């Protein structure tokens, strides 16, 4: 297994410019590339695979330059969105393909992978007859059989139901940790990103917005996109925060914390307004949805939407009801960067 590093990587793609991007991934490690549609995530993966020419920068595998190598000579296996399985071959023949290319006649490893990835029941079937989860297993197995020096997976586990997704996530995690394959995934799913990736790279409009530990991303998201991705239910721009602060004086200390890109905070707990309620912020209920521990309440404060949690012990609030909520300054994160606002 090898360590890969990209420095100042730039791709020009008919009016769209990605980079410069710096990236480093070592054996047994994985990176999640995040960002809105059109941020350049797929372009980055394709450039690493050699499917897209880079105009500047360097790409090295264990110090050896890879930037000008053809895709088949890089040892970086790319799994495209849609998985790129061969429709005219059975699952087993798909898995066998990388072995055939190397002229390996021994099917022992093939059988091992089929067994290990749970492909045995459908090994003789063509991809068109397989479920999404089964196809992902075949794609993962096929990539592994190519002895990848780097695994590049564009949106794994996208159209799979949550239960099957967890199983597959385990399969992928194993490829990274047990087989020590350095991995870069593009994903829109935070569970996939946060379970699989040690580090995250957030792109917006072709530029790097964040590069660092996944934990740091969640603790202090750089912009609105990263905040929503990390699970912050409330993301306000500066203007929104000011409006809310003007309408509701108890919120003012909170508003003072807004950075250039606004602020974000997890859904605060809400409860029936006590009387007198002078120091508590109040919101008006718009609609609510049942949740495991009570209700998720969408409310407004000063015309700005806010998501709250409502405990079941109080009984459900009704639309138009005023509710009070508690919010501590520790929960507020300032967003340093404008942009990335798309939900």
């Amino acid at each position: 297994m090898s360590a890969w590093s990209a420095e100042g990587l730039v791709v020009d793609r008919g009016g769209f410019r990605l980079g410069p991007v710096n990236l480093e991934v070592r054996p047994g490690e994985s990176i999640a590339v995040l960002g809105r549609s059109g941020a350049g995530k797929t372009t980055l993966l394709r450039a690493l695979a050699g499917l897209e020419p880079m105009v500047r920068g360097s790409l090295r595998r264990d110090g050896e330059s890879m930037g000008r190598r053809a895709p088949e000579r890089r040892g970086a296996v790319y799994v495209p969105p849609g998985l790129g399985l061969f429709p005219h071959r059975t699952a087993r023949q798909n898995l066998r393909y990388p072995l055939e290319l190397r002229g390996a006649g021994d099917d022992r490893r093939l059988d091992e992978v089929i067994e290990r990835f749970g492909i045995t029941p459908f090994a003789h079937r063509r991809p068109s007859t397989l479920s999404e989860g089964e196809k992902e297993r075949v794609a993962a197995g096929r990539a592994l059989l190519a002895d990848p020096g780097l695994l590049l997976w564009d949106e794994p586990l996208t159209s799979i139901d949550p239960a099957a997704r967890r199983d597959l996530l385990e399969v992928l995690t194993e490829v990274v940790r047990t087989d020590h394959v350095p991995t870069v995934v593009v994903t829109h799913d935070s569970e996939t990103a946060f379970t699989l990736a040690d580090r995250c790279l957030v792109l917006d409009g072709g530029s790097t917005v964040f590069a660092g530990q996944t934990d740091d991303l969640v603790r202090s998201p750089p912009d609105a996109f990263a905040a929503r991705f990390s699970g912050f239910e409330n993301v306000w721009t500066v203007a929104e925060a000011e409006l809310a602060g003007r309408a509701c004086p108890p919120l003012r200390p909170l508003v003072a914390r807004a950075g250039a890109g606004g602020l974000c905070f997890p859904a605060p707990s809400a409860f029936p307004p006590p009387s007198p309620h002078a120091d508590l912020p109040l919101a008006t209920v718009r609609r609510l949805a049942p949740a495991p521990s009570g209700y998720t309440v969408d409310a407004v404060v000063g015309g700005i939407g806010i998501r709250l949690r409502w405990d079941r012990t109080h009984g459900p609030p009704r639309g138009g009801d005023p509710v009070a909520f508690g919010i501590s300054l520790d929960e507020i994160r300032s967003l340093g960067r404008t942009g990335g606002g798309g939900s």
Partner: protein
Amino acid sequence: MTSTLSETGARLAHGAPRAVAIVLSASLLILFVLPIVALVTYVPPGTSAPSVPPPPRAGALAPLWPGPGAPTWLVEIAKAAGDPGAETALSFTLFASGIALAVSFVLGVPLGYLLARHRFPGRSLVEAAVALPVVVPHLVAGLALLLLFQPQSPIGSLAIQLGVPVFGTIWGVALVMIYVSAPYTVLASELSFRAVDAGAVEAARTLGASPAQAFQHVTLPLALRGILAGGILTWARAVSEIGGFLILAYSVYPSGPYQGPVTSTLSVYLYNLYQIEGIVGVASTASAFLLLAFGIFLAVRLLERWGRLPWAPRGLLP
């Protein structure tokens, strides 16, 4: 009351247009099929059913030869098919169309690939040029080829020097066939290559396949079925051509790979027969040609459906 009304409404909404569509479709199909039935079952006036059919002949159309008790119209067709002139014209046409099909494939499939997979300046012009032979009336195409290849022209004299004269030769016939039919190969291959999942090809590359290997293992097998279907269309268009032949190769003299008696393409042969003998003389021969063409077409379609084309190993077609 209300429910009855809405039920009627539903029936109207869903039932009526479908019924109309069925009637209109059936009318078109009847228009397609009825003339063929009239032609095939045509018995020239004054013909009586022979008590004993003539003995079978070995020849290209031998499979069409009816056994005892066959209906009169079928016996007539068989008799016409056994005519040596028709047999020569038929085998010549099949031979020439084979050459034309091979050339169309060799030149047309790569062009289809380029159009499907590459962006280059002048692409739209190339696409327009490919469509040109389809929209030009074929008599006009024949005239254009005539001007280009007349012996006085540089290209015409070059062709004669190279030993491939086009007037009244198999080369001329093949040239016309290629001109009018190769666009179908190009268009079919372009569509087929375009339908191949680019992700699968790229995945193959990063799994270690060279561009040539990815083409051989992924692109070509996936596009093959569509390309072959285009080949059937190309062939059908080539053998049914007449306009260009009337100008460039009305009669065909032995030259190059064809060293048989003086003949013509089957379409020109039928046209000749019609000019001389009228419908009475041509109906049976035309029917024989029609049945053969239909038989070949049907056979290819069935083989394709079963995935057992002789040139495509089992499991190759998706």
